[in-house]
């Protein structure tokens, strides 16, 4: 049932995108002015643009069902699937690393802040969270480059040719926002949780504050964070144009933007479908995660 809805969602997104995209002004040919009518007709025929829109839509869906995303109009007729496969890897890796690292550190800071509510460490963590949210990640990216690559010369300044080492700085730059976000979320939630009755009971059991925070508090405080975590993960995995550019990472973000500018229909479609599929999957995973963390959801789901 769940899978059917996921497929339906993807289908609707694909359809809407297809028609919206074709409503965009312009054509995939960037030198159309200089093409003769005959050349234009030939090209249109070659790529199937001479057919009515609806027919093209049906054809596209048919191909899609066979796993054929079409060919890129922009990059010398390469199949879109190959193109994406090359570009997706770095983006997904960076995104996942950033979310993982950012959330872990953010959650830790949030817990520390909540435990020291209104004292120095709390103010420090909150300040960090606000800064992290307000400073754009490209500023952080450049700062990181300056400190760790230029001044200290510890890590490569960019490119994607040094294995894990070249992922460190872009990951850090990208992780600032999930870090700040989860720090803020966890702090708010944790402050509330720490004043609840079951925490009081844990204190009455003779448990230490740190153990209370991590074994009884955190799990309860995590629940609302999961909701925002899903979409955040997707948006990071699908690449950040600016950060990928700064570090010269061959990711998907840059590609997507280019394909829109050049009306590269099939690439736009493929990337959109891919992003949507990721989002739908992540939301699905989020729901599963909910059930793992909050036993109350499990029962309601089973009913």
């Amino acid at each position, binding site marked *: 049932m769940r899978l059917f809805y996921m497929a339906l969602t993807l289908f609707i997104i694909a359809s809407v995108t297809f028609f919206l995209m074709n409503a965009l002004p312009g054509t995939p040919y960037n030198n159309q002015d200089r093409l003769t009518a005959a050349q234009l007709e030939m090209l249109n025929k070659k790529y199937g643009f001479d057919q009515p829109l609806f027919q093209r839509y049906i054809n596209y869906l048919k191909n899609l069902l066979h796993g054929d995303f079409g060919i890129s109009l922009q990059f010398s007729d390469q199949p879109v699937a190959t193109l994406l496969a090359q570009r997706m890897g770095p983006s997904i890796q960076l995104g996942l690393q950033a979310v993982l690292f950012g959330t872990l550190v953010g959650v830790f800071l949030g817990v520390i802040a909540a435990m020291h509510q209104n004292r120095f460490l709390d103010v420090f963590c909150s300040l960090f969270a606000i800064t992290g949210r307000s400073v754009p990640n490209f500023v952080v990216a450049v700062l990181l480059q300056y400190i760790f690559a230029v001044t200290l010369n510890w890590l490569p300044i960019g490119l994607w040719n040094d294995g894990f080492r070249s992922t460190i700085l872009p990951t850090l730059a990208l992780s600032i926002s999930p870090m700040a976000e989860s720090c803020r979320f966890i702090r708010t939630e944790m402050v509330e949780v720490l004043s609840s009755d*079951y925490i*009081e*009971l844990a204190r009455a*059991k*003779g448990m230490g504050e740190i153990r209370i925070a991590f074994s009884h508090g955190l*799990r*309860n405080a995590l629940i609302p964070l999961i909701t925002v975590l899903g979409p955040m993960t997707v948006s990071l995995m699908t690449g950040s144009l600016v950060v990928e550019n700064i570090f010269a990472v061959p990711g998907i973000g840059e590609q997507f933007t280019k394909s829109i500018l050049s009306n590269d229909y099939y690439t736009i479609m493929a990337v959109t479908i891919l992003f949507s599929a990721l989002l739908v999957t992540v939301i699905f995973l989020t729901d599963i995660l909910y059930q793992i963390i909050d036993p*109350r959801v499990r*029962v309601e789901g089973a009913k």
Partner: protein
Amino acid sequence: MPENVLEVKHLSVSFDTYAGRVQAVRDISFDLRKGETLALVGESGCGKSVTCRSVMGLLAKNAKVDGGEILFENKDLLRQSNRVLRSIRGGKIAMIFQDPMTSLDPTMKIGKQIAETVRLHKPVTRAAAKQRALELLALVGIEEPEKRYHQYPHEFSGGQRQRIVIAIALAADPQILIADEPTTALDVTMQAQILDLIKDIQKKTGASVIFITHDLGVVANVADRVAVMYAGRIIEIGLADEVFYDPRHPYTWGLLASMPTLATDSETLYAIPGTPPTLINPAPGDAFAPRNPWALEADRLVEPPLFPVTETHFAATWLLDERAPKIEPPENIALRARAFREKQSERSAAL
């Protein structure tokens, strides 16, 4: 007389609030004897919970102990390190909370919540702790403990959850059990069951119980001794029979009179006039004096000490001073007292 397991001496606790310093507990002293149940009775805000939280070392951050001592095993609990307190808390002195719906961690299996407490205080293996948790579940009357061990709090009813909270409290064989209104959040039939359970456990383990409540019906059911609190002070303390049948403080009279009985006609239920005083800069004298139709001039000026009525019964009212005029307690109280004396003389005659 059995030995004291806990002695509270001249305890004063205050809270810093925006309105000022609230003197929630003012110079309270009482003893808790081995194996007895002492009920702390009083209306909301009279300081009964604060007193117990001081014993547990669980006062809120804005609370300050202004003086006194709490002696337990020859140690003053008010002057112990966090480490020592943690080993006592939940280990030797355990607490049962008011609302079972919110006092269990919703994301942890209840069995683990019990076993965790066992392991905090006893050097046992995981398996042994689980075994102990299963025994405790059986002891508090949870059926099929093996299966229930792996369930979460939301799969239990309110009464069952309170049983689990009690199991957690018993995890490390405490000498003192503090029950902070353990039945207030439950419906009446459940209340009786939980009270029976606590009594039963006390019989089996020989633990002393401090029972906090504002429900005199509950007190009559469980208490060996009763301490009545008003405005941060103990105003009357004695054996349960003495306080119930021969009360001496006008506030206790009021409390008893406002308790519905089968004889009371529901439209005329008595209420003590007025409201409790604020405890920011309390006025001199007996805090109850402004609401007390029997108050003497002295009650308004000077804090009355606890006058002995019998060896075990004390009340803080100037009415008990030898210079005080003779005052007849209200009729219903006088009736109680007479019935009580007759019962006692019968009893002594029988002996």
